[in-house]
């Protein structure tokens, strides 16, 4: 793989910052002493004349996938939803699985940008920008599926609070309508959060731009930002507010998604554990996706000093924790099914594990509960190839989790006479695979043209950014600080 040349000689460079000695804070930015170096390191990706060959290669594949997605969607719209394999009784299958899968992926981005911000986790600054980008692109992919699942896409405005030709309004007691508001709000707020965070960095790119086109393009989106501290003051307040607003929002979005299932009467869906279980699963899958994307991106664009092993190590710890939560939820579902004494509930869970979809249940447990346990070991947590493979496993497992919940419950509900089997068609599979194309196209464009790392935020967490930093090193200030204390 060709990569943008950064610093070919790696002799004497610090690469390991995973130590956990109390009293010694490991640096989050490696091998850099000045703010200018951070700017340079991040901006060189967007400013590079030549794009790495690997980028073109991936972009071509993704574009192909996106094209196929477009074809499948067009075919579906022109022909009807019957081109998918879903039919009575399995009326929700790949489409809703994909919807929940993609929305879930998005949650890690918001967790990193909002919740870790409130918890003052400084390591978030290295990864928040592209995790938020991932959120937005994932929500775009997610929104596609219910949009085309409605069948007659030309009346998709029925989703919105507008009266139809019979002067009837959408039914606000339905969780499906809550979903429209939840996902719509989530997308809007995530986009604003992402953009607001990016404005100072776009200003950096504007001020460094050599060409007229770059200057105008970055300049327009930088909104005339000039780093005024009077602006920074309101900006920081606004950022804190956005984080505080996004935190309950992200928890609510997947809770509302889980209400789509939990408020129904179907055995296997009608459980109170769903909201927290879905949120934990969403964060789990989202972090896996962040690792999947971060590992190649830092390699390809030479960002190893900013997205360090410590960042990846921390993310793997979160994968481990949320993986255990998900495993607990799986066990608790079984316990409640037994403890409730409801025969349909009991059957639904036995059927999940040993019924016609036993293989997907097995895949789900293997990928989501067993593989993350490897992250108990630091050597595995900090090994790039292992974490990459494990994150892929988690992605697969979390897709199957949604498949298991949705399809196995619908296929075998109360009366055996109304049971059925779901088999995907090529359009089902094509749309799903194609959505990855759409996602990667957007992500690759983002990597190439937009500052992939929050430059201003990374600078602010460097030790040099502390106004008292020099007190500990400088000779002139030493006496001052001692006299002061």
């Amino acid at each position, binding site marked *: 793989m060709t990569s943008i040349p950064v610093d070919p000689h790696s002799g004497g460079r610090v690469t390991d910052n995973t130590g956990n000695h109390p009293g010694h804070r490991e640096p989050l930015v490696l091998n850099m002493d*000045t*703010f*200018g170096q951070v*700017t340079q390191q991040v901006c060189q990706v967007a400013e590079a004349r030549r794009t790495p060959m690997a980028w073109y290669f991936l972009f071509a594949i993704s574009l192909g996938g996106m094209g196929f997605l477009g074809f499948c969607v067009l075919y579906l719209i022109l022909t009807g939803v019957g081109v998918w394999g879903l039919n009575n009784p399995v009326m929700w299958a790949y489409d809703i699985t994909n919807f929940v899968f993609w929305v879930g992926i998005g949650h890690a981005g918001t967790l990193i940008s909002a919740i870790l911000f409130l918890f003052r986790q400084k390591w978030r600054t290295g990864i928040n920008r592209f995790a938020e980008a991932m959120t937005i692109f994932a929500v775009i992919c997610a929104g596609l599926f219910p949009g085309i699942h409605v069948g007659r896409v030309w009346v998709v405005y029925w989703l919105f*609070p507008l*009266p139809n030709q019979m*002067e009837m*309004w959408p*039914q*606000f*007691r339905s*969780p499906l*309508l*809550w979903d429209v*508001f939840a996902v*719509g*709000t989530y997308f*809007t*707020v995530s986009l*604003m*959060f992402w953009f*607001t965070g990016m404005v*100072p960095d776009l200003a*950096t790119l*504007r*001020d*460094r731009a050599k060409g007229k086109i770059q200057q105008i393009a970055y300049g327009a989106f930088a*909104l*005339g*930002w*000039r*780093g*005024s*501290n*009077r*602006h*920074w*003051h*309101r*900006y*920081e*307040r*606004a950022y804190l*507010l*956005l984080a505080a*607003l996004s935190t309950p*929002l992200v928890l*609510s979005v997947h809770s*509302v998604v889980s209400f789509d299932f939990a408020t129904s009467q179907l055995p296997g869906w009608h459980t109170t554990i769903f909201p927290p279980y879905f949120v934990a699963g969403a964060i789990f899958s989202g972090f896996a996706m962040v690792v999947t994307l971060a590992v190649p991106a830092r390699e390809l664009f030479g960002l190893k000093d900013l997205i360090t092993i410590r960042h990846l190590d921390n993310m793997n710890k979160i994968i481990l924790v949320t993986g255990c939560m998900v495993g607990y939820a799986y066990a608790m579902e079984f316990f409640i099914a037994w403890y409730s004494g409801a025969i349909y509930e009991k059957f639904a869970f036995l059927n999940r594990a040993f019924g016609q979809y036993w293989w997907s249940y097995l895949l789900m447990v293997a990928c989501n509960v067993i593989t993350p346990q490897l992250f108990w070991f630091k050597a595995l947590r900090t090994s790039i190839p292992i974490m990459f493979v494990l994150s892929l496993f988690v992605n697969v497992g979390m897709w199957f989790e949604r498949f298991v919940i949705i399809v196995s419950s619908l296929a075998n509900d109360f009366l055996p006479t109304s049971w059925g089997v779901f088999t995907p068609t090529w359009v089902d599979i094509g749309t799903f695979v194609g959505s990855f194309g759409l996602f990667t196209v957007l992500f690759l464009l983002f990597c190439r043209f937009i500052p992939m790392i929050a430059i*201003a935020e990374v*600078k*602010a967490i460097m030790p*040099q*950014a*502390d*106004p*008292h*930093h020099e*007190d500990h090193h400088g000779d002139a*200030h030493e006496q001052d600080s001692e006299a002061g204390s």
Partner: protein
Amino acid sequence: MSAPKNVAANKAPARPALYGLIAEFETPAQIIKAAEQVRDAGYKWWDCCTPFPVHGLDQAMGIRTTILPVLVFFAGLSGTITAFCLQTFTNSSDFSLWAVVWVTGYPFLISGKPLLSLQAFIPVMFELTILFSALTTVSLMFGFNGLPRLHHPLFRSKRFRRATDDRFFVVIEARDPRFFPTRTREFLESLDPISIEAVED
């Protein structure tokens, strides 16, 4: 902080008016020290431009805390009320009202649930609260900051471009009552910056 256009400068383009003086510093510690002195010297129309928010600079400059969070609270409240009214109107009433066209509510009776199902209306009320708050946060933040704007006199300075990279600037505007080109320059020199530059309006 948008500067009112100097009419005299427009009429006589030969000698453009002065926007202000900028002094360049290298570290956060220096800018804080400088900011404290500018503040104490009694300047009003001045600013610090930094590549990232420097901790403690707000106090050093004496910036008053923004009212933004209070306004956002009311925006959120209006979101809650909007969502409540929207849902009760469309699902629990048969009133007619004018919203661009005449529309009428539709009292849905779904599985014997009460017409005013507040519990079922909570999720949408919550979401609109967040949506209204977030939209207000971002738009008011940029609005109060006088952004977006297409140009600013400071962008004329090549040196100032490093304000978004690794340099810290003190800007004293010419419209400040205490501003005198030579005296202010001398004052800035006493702060020990690495450079001082005059920026034209």
